[in-house]
């Protein structure tokens, strides 16, 4: 049915757009769900939406990851109702920090790094971005950085869990014919055929 290379390419582009829209929707769902969870430790978020960012990064690349993260933050904030408020600002700086570190890791380490490594980079970036903006705007005092050890350990655990989930998700998705033209960008590939 697909007769030319051009048609195949435009088909893949369309597929990418559709799936990115679905990924973003999922990420927003996870983001808002997490915001609603009762939590004895405020600000200690697991960051489930990052699983989708990692999936986008692995299947579609760096730009897709940025698109997914930023869209998730803006639309999620819109839905929760604190767009351009302090909570949104924290989320945005965290997200940008996470994407920066993930981009750095992806570009510098390329195939050597896996989704778990990228995930803990993302989690640490998120933590540092949030503490940075909190120290400047919310608390206006450098003593907020005293929370860094606790946040970093939490980032490690949640990063590993998110990374494993993303790795499993990518392997699972790539088995489906809709993703036949895509390749897993990072980590170990399980020889399928």
């Amino acid at each position, binding site marked *: 049915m697909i007769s030319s290379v051009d048609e195949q390419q435009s088909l893949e582009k369309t597929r990418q757009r559709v799936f990115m829209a679905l990924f973003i929707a999922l990420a927003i769902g996870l983001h808002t769900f997490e915001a609603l969870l009762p939590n004895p430790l405020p600000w200690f978020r697991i960051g489930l939406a990052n699983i989708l960012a990692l999936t986008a990064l692995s299947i579609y690349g760096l730009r897709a990851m940025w698109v997914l993260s930023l869209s998730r933050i803006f639309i999620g904030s819109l839905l929760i109702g604190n767009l351009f408020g302090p909570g949104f600002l924290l989320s945005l700086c965290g997200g940008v920090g996470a994407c920066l570190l993930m981009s750095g*890791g992806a570009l510098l*380490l390329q195939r*050597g*790094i*896996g*989704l*778990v*490594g990228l995930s*803990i*980079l993302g989690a*640490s970036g998120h933590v540092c971005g949030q503490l940075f903006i909190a120290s400047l705007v919310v608390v206006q*005092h*450098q*003593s907020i*950085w*005293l929370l*860094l*050890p606790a946040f*970093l*350990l939490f*980032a*490690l655990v949640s*990063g*590993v869990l998110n*990374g*494993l989930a993303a*790795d*499993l998700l990518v392997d699972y998705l790539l088995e489906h014919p809709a993703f036949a033209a895509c390749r897993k960008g990072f*980590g*170990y590939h399980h020889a399928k055929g």
Partner: protein
Amino acid sequence: MALNSLWARITKIDRLLMLLLIMLAVASLWLSLGRAVGRSVLIYEGETLAFTAPLSQDRHIELQGPLGVTQVEISAGKLRIISSPCQRKICIGMGEIHRSGDLLACVPNRVVVRIEGEEGDYDLLSR
């Protein structure tokens, strides 16, 4: 899903990064705990610096705020808030402070007490 197959998904560089992160967390913890013992106490009522006192001398201080009187005590080189007219008494629950940079505050009553340290210890430096 066996734990082994999950561990196999983590590359060598991933494991290195995990180790680095643990080390970073421990290092930042060590740094935060190893701060110098403070020298003097700065007491703010609202926005203004009410007065300073050395941490070495035992002292009992009463501070006036919009809600009432907050009592602060310096004893044995440590500073703590004894009583305050606030509702939640979080300031009292914070306990004692003695390191430079440490801070106790009763926010409803607008009282802040801070420990200041040596010459070379500054929170912010602008040139």
